[in-house]
């Protein structure tokens, strides 16, 4: 029988950015909070970025796809029916241990796509309601940037100065300047000077394999250490198998989890908040069945797992004559642009994309275009190897700047997370399957943006360009599988992330987002989690608890 630990006021499942903000605010407000996290603590010294082997390790142990890493702490995902491979990390700090730190708040129009463009749904609140929370979390993450971006409404500045955009960033900016297109120095969740216990970014350019400098913000570095002072309890290596629902009380009462020694345990709580990301969260709900919820917890709408969004992603590289030292970071965005962000129906699609300007990376990244790709066009290996390999390195390595294009995909019920019939994780818990097809709108959007990005590279003086309009391993952003809304038939959560079905169950991760915008989501994720946690603190006495 599962051993039950003491009841907490709040149980949080998942310790990524959403769980971390929530844990901080609730513990500071005096609640007793326990976080269950399937992953364990990483030490910045473990990260490969400052070691010679970093690019090799990035191909396996530090790969962003759990299906490639195949670690015991990851859960497998059946992706055989998905155009895109989901990427994430299982650790204290969640996927933010390996995120790139691009801080790109959503825009006002992102909250009103139904009203403005007649597609998908409006959010139950707007940009201006989120803005004060955004400004608060921008301080928490020790951001660095330049105030006054005309891509956004006026807002407060950032706690630390701009990190240099480097020669690669300057090249990209020159192209945009020639065309008269919008660009702005990159805003990143990493300080340029020592700040709140984080070191300054040292521009190593290896953010996506963990920051060896302890500079890039991730929850394990700062927030959880602070929350601990207020009595927050982190249980690492604890994998939740299901949430406990009491049919008599019509409330959730806690969760069952498997600890690192394989023992089944229970954590009881008055309130349960899911922060396990847009695949992990619906997986837990769909695995939690009861008499009242035979199709998964909080699923009376039938929408749990539905409307998965993963941001169509394209890559355009420019190869330049000059040495841009394009292995330097941050990576991190050097600059970005919102020039083609808003809808213009004459382009043949709705909504848009943000482009993030980055350096080309280390030498093995130059090889990404050859190797196993050689035979996609029935070529001969000699086209890419021998002297030609040296020539490729000579012309691309250190001389490449790129635009990473993050586009908006609209929510579609057929894009979804289910429980796989056979697949299980290392604890025997049923694992998810995802079904995701790239829509015609997304394809057109990516083609248009790739063409424009190519033009900007040419304006910047690139002597050649490489275009990958869609990459399979690009599911960095997972959104939308338990969406917020005002109508319980059309949504899983209300505007405060509270389940329409069960008043003491909340979801604060990206699953709650009704639409995904065309921007990296974590800034808005943390701002929305900050809004929801603030509301919960203010309303705690009125929440009908277990």
């Amino acid at each position, binding site marked *: 029988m599962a051993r039950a630990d003491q009841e907490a006021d709040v149980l949080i499942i998942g310790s990524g950015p959403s769980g971390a903000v929530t844990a901080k605010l609730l513990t500071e407000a005096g609640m007793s909070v326990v976080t269950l996290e399937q992953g364990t603590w990483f030490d910045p010294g473990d990260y490969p970025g400052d070691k010679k082997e970093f690019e090799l*390790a990035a191909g396996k142990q530090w790969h962003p796809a759990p299906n490639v890493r195949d670690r015991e702490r990851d859960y497998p995902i059946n992706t055989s029916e998905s155009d895109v491979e989901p990427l994430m990390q299982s650790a204290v700090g969640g996927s933010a241990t390996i995120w790139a730190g691009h801080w790109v708040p959503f825009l006002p129009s992102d909250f009103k796509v139904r009203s403005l463009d007649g597609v998908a749904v409006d959010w139950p609140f707007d940009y201006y309601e989120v803005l004060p929370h955004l400004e608060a979390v921008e301080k928490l993450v020790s951001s660095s940037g330049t105030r006054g971006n005309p*891509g956004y409404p006026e807002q407060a500045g950032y706690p630390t100065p701009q990190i240099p955009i480097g020669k690669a960033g300057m090249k990209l900016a020159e192209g945009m300047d020639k065309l008269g297109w919008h660009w702005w120095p990159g805003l990143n969740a990493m300080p340029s000077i020592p700040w709140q216990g984080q070191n300054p970014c040292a521009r190593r350019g290896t953010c996506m394999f963990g920051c060896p400098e302890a500079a890039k913000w991730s929850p394990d570095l700062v927030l959880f250490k602070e929350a601990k002072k207020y009595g927050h309890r982190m249980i690492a290596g604890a994998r939740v198998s299901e949430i406990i629902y009491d049919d008599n009380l019509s409330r959730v009462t806690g969760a069952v989890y498997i600890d690192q020694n394989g023992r089944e345990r229970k954590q009881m709580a008055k309130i349960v908040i899911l922060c396990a990301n847009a695949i992990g969260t619906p997986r837990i709900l769909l695995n939690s069945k009861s008499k009242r919820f035979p199709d998964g917890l909080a699923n009376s709408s039938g929408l749990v797992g539905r409307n998965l969004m993963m941001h169509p992603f394209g890559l355009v590289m420019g190869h330049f004559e000059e040495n841009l030292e394009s292995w330097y970071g941050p990576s991190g965005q050097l600059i970005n642009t919102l020039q083609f962000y808003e809808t213009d129906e004459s382009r043949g699609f709705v909504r848009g994309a943000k482009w993030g300007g980055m350096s080309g990376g280390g030498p093995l990244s130059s090889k990404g275009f050859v190797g196993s790709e050689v035979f996609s066009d029935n070529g001969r290996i000699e086209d890419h190897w*021998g002297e030609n390999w040296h020539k490729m390195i000579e012309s691309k390595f250190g001389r490449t700047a790129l635009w990473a294009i993050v586009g908006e995909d609209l929510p579609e019920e057929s894009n979804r997370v289910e429980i796989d019939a056979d697949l299980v994780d290392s604890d025997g818990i049923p694992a998810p399957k995802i079904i995701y097809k790239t829509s015609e709108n997304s394809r057109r959007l990516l083609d248009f943006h790739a063409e424009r990005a190519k033009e900007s590279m040419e304006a910047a003086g690139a002597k050649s360009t490489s275009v990958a309009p869609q990459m399979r391993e690009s599911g960095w952003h997972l959104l939308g599988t338990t969406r917020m809304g005002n109508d319980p038939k059309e949504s899983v959560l209300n505007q405060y992330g509270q389940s329409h079905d069960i008043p003491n169950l909340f979801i604060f991760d990206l699953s709650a987002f009704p639409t995904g915008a065309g921007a990296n989501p974590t800034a808005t994720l943390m701002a929305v989690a900050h809004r929801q946690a603030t509301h919960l603190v203010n309303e705690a006495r009125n929440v009908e608890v277990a």
Partner: protein
Amino acid sequence: MANFSDAEREIYGKLADYLIPSWKDRPAATSVGVHRHMLDEVLRIRPDLEAAFQRAIARCPGQDISKELNALAREDNAAWTALTTVTTGGYMMTDEARAAVGYPGQVAPPYDPNETPEYVTNGMLDRVKARGPIFRDTRHLS
């Protein structure tokens, strides 16, 4: 971890030099030891590549390297990828190859965060500001 015989290392060395020969001032794969200490080092870091790498060298005895490698790439993609990853990965970790391509590694270049950036002094950023806001406002919808 596998112990490779001298004969296996020699065969692999031939394949590696075909993929990365010496060129201008850049050393060939075997002259920086990709078939010797670097092979052991790469497989220590990436033991997952070993089986596919072994398949590659077993299939390519180095008699007609072009034919063997083209067939490998076409017929056993995983083995081909392992072979090229081991070779380029090992090569680019050596000081000699890094010096030849001008790569210091992912070092930390010093910078002054308070220095005024060139795009400010040369007016580039002012031109962006001068063009004014480009977002669609939604205040009228609330």
